[in-house]
């Protein structure tokens, strides 16, 4: 047992930003770990990577990854990323954000980015509530869950994110939990290889906030829930993949090819210019 050696993934992290701000047992660290792991396996060129995040606990991840990164306003990560990607299609634009940021305040941007099939890769840490503001009910909070703003039990039906993403036109859709680190890492790799709009939902434990109110006080308990309830059901009908206390359908749900927005845009640009040149000559 020795200590001198550096962690194999340290080169993907901003040393002077570590340690991260996240609670003990918070899944965000695992998501970050898997992302670094995927970058490592792909030997990914960090000069070509831009990480964009929104507001929320996981929003901090942009600051932790040792690449160009931008921490936007609440909900706007995807809109910002759209500008980044279109202005320089060479860049791999990765949006890492939370369920509240992407699907409540940012929901409109999500469905439209997916609809356009712009080549942005979205990694969503779903902790089932608003963690950073102290655990309010959000767009993914399960029915009857207790939160600081649903003290009598949540009566809002949660989004089924993989269904939403698939219906909106994403070319790659997967859901894992922070227990499925291997598959998550492989999924992230797959996502980075694809061209169009991609979405991965990661169920991520929030023991300090969500768990506290819902009888899962430790990360281990929340991971235990994932282990018990997870059913790998790849390429099954995403509309049947609602998350319930008894069943968490995980797996890859969509993996199709479709011309990306930027590709179509740049083909148009070349086309009209070639035609114009012919007219001139």
């Amino acid at each position, binding site marked *: 047992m020795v200590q001198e050696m550096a962690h194999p993934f340290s080169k993907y992290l901003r040393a002077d930003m570590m340690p991260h701000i996240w609670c003990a047992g918070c899944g965000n660290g695992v998501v970050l770990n898997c992302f670094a792991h995927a970058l490592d396996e792909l030997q990914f060129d960090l000069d070509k990577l831009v990480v964009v995040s929104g507001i929320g606990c996981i929003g901090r991840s942009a600051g932790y990854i040792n690449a160009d990164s931008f921490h936007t306003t609440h909900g706007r990560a995807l809109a910002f990323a759209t500008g980044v990607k279109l202005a320089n299609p060479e860049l791999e634009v990765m949006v890492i954000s939370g369920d509240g940021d992407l699907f409540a305040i940012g929901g409109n941007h999500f469905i439209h980015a997916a609809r356009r099939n712009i080549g942005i890769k979205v990694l969503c840490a779903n902790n089932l509530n608003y963690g950073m503001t102290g655990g309010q009910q959000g767009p993914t909070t399960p029915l009857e869950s207790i939160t600081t703003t649903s003290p009598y039990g949540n009566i809002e039906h949660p989004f089924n994110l993989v269904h939403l993403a698939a219906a909106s036109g994403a070319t790659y859709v997967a859901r894992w939990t922070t227990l499925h*680190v291997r598959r998550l890492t492989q999924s992230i790799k797959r996502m980075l290889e694809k061209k169009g709009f991609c979405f991965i939902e990661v169920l991520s434990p929030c023991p300090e906030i969500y768990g506290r109110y819902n009888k899962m006080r430790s990360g281990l308990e929340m991971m235990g829930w994932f282990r018990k309830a997870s059913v790998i059901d790849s390429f099954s009908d995403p509309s049947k993949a609602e998350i319930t206390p008894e069943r968490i359908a995980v797996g890859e749900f969509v993996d199709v090819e479709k011309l990306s927005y930027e590709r179509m845009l740049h083909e148009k640009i070349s086309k009209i210019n070639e035609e114009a040149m012919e007219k001139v000559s």
Partner: protein
Amino acid sequence: MAENKESQSKQQEEPRIGVYICHCGLNIAGSLDCADVAKFAGTLPHVVLAQDNRYTCSDQGQAGIKKDIKEHKLNRVVVASCSPRLHEPTFRKACEEAGLNKYLFEMANIREHCSWVHLHDREAATEKAKDLVKMAVAKAALLQPAEEAEVPITRKALVIGGGVAGIQAALDLADTGYRVYVVEKEPSIGGMMARIDKTFPTMDCSICILAPKMSDVGHHPNIELLTNSEVTEVKGYIGNFHVKVLKKPRYVTKDCSACGECVKVCPIVAPNEFDVGLAIRHGIFTPFAQAVPSTYIVDMNLCLNKEGVIVCDKCIRACERQAIKFEMKPETEEIEVGTIIVATGADVFDPSVLPNYGYGKFPNVITSLEFERLINAGGPSGGHLIRPSDKQIPKRVAFVQCVGSRSDKAGKLYCSNVCCMNTIKDSLLIKEHWPDTEIYVFYIDIRAYGKGFEDLYKRARGEGVVFVRGLPAEIKEDKKTHNLWLIGEDTLKNEVYKIKADMAILSIGLEARKDSEMIQRMLTLSRNQDGFFLEAHPKLRPVDAATGGIFFAGCAESPKDIKDSVTQASAAAARAGILMAKGKVTVEAITPVVFPEKCKACGLCVKVCPYNAITLNKEKKRIEIIQAACGGCGTCAAECAFGALTQSHFTDDQIIGQIDAVTEHDADKKIIAFNCNWCSYAGADFAGVSRMQYPPNVRIIRTMCSGRVAPKFIERAFARGAATVLVSGCHIGDCHYINANYQTQKRVERLWKKMEQSGLNKERLQLLWCSAAEGEKFASKIREMKSTVDKVKPEEIEKAKEVFKKALEGT
């Protein structure tokens, strides 16, 4: 219904019954007085001829019957001999040849159900035999001729087991052009032969001659190979079997190129079962180099990745083809086949139950199977025969024969058939590699009966292998050197020997598969007392099962060597091929007969029919039978309260005739049993074959399904003073007629309630689920009911008569 009128007209003519009591050598005559039974038969109504003879099934026995039919104008024939499951087809054929409709033949089972189960009470056995004959005659008098319907045969075959027998059978059928499914529970086909080094007497390399056949199976366009799979359910009947196969996940897809990179990185290590643990394998592995399919497999019991969580992904990363998929789930494939070949093979005897040989304690005592792996160039020692204790090549080697065979104390009574020649072959292999090894073979007899066997035996002797008659009483070990001492008596020299050896090889016998019973139940087969599957006839139908459309190949039927297995496999394939070539088979004329005038169109029969073969025509207020769809269980007839339905060849009259015959006298001492043809009757046969002794009070009436047993039959038995009644059928879920035995349960339960309400001891009516394998279960039930019989008081008998007297009305 035309047929019905015609049969009624036939009924007019006076029955002329011929009765034949078979000695079956001493199998029957040994424990009952056949002549006396024949004399008694002569006194029965309509019997115009009764005789006993040694082998009624013999050609001359059959010739006699044919002659009598003509000379004595017999229009009914009764043979009292073995189980109808064995010889009914033989005698029916004889009758037909003599121009008598085969449905005018009836059998009394006085062997499996009488002589063999009452070996020590000649008088009682004889009396019981008389009763059984009387019942048969009573039914015979009411028999009616019938024409058989034809059903199509699915031109596909299922082969259970992928050893050399299964492989041969599958290839023969596939080459003939039939679609074949091969189901193998191991990850690869090849079976025992793949593990053997050389074959006797020709000394070819076993895997070298097998591997090409294996890959043929793997690539044959007509063969679908289902490895790591098990048959979980078989329903239907000859020509039309519906089979469920559980395909267990390999966690590796067909994309696997068998490059083996995954194995290099797998951190899990375990003994390789294929090498009997003498070599290790990894958590992901292929059992052996020539495995078919070559696709690797993950051993989930060992793999770190449980409950869908991938903890270790070394293999996944190592796999270029990305063929490793831990998401794989078990799948059930449903297939339709016309014929089934059972080639499930045999297990080997585990000598660790013999303390005196020290197997498992002494490292240098190994089995002949372990030897095969050691001497095999592809084996754990690269073909070097080394002692497990010190990995040295032994100078003195001893073979001990008949380990687990031919012994009433340790192991099985029978000779395992292959061990002698295997040992001779092994001894020569050692001599070939290490000529100056001293080899001793301890034996009881050397059985070198086959072609080229004797020469091999001579050669071994010529090469100086020492054969000592007399098995060692025990093997001792020198704790330090782990050398062995074999101590016993040389029965030729009549002197005690104490011979030192560096290594001892126990020549272990073959025994029936531990899971044979499961196959037996699913396919409603019979087994002999050694547990091997029982052929329909030991001489004339050696590869057929009693159940139509099912055949045996290889060691599943009895221990045999590769040559015999292959021969039998080809035979089984040919037999199955005959059926499928014909493309159709006639099914017994045991479908329902309707009496429209009695039908109230209540639709109860429609509800209980497992095959939806009955429809209710509301306009015409009558039911219609779809003969082809009917499975012939007769539960509709049992359900009809108005006697508007009956099952031909198992009509109410015929069954009531049997009941009345058996209850004519001493009813209060008797157990009237209704056994279904497929499970409980076969179970009773199994009890007989296994010579399980039980009280002679029981009289078995055979129905196709327990669902045929109408409450009125049971009531009538009680009304006529029977002490007890047993209704016995297949286990719930195993019913040969899908679920007809649910009706049995309902009806018996209703009767129990009735008996309770009317103050009768409901123990007098028993319900028994008994599979073809559960002979002992049947026997002990009879023992149990005997004690009930003894307890029943005369007034209880009378009370039952009173309660059920309505059952005597009609007919």
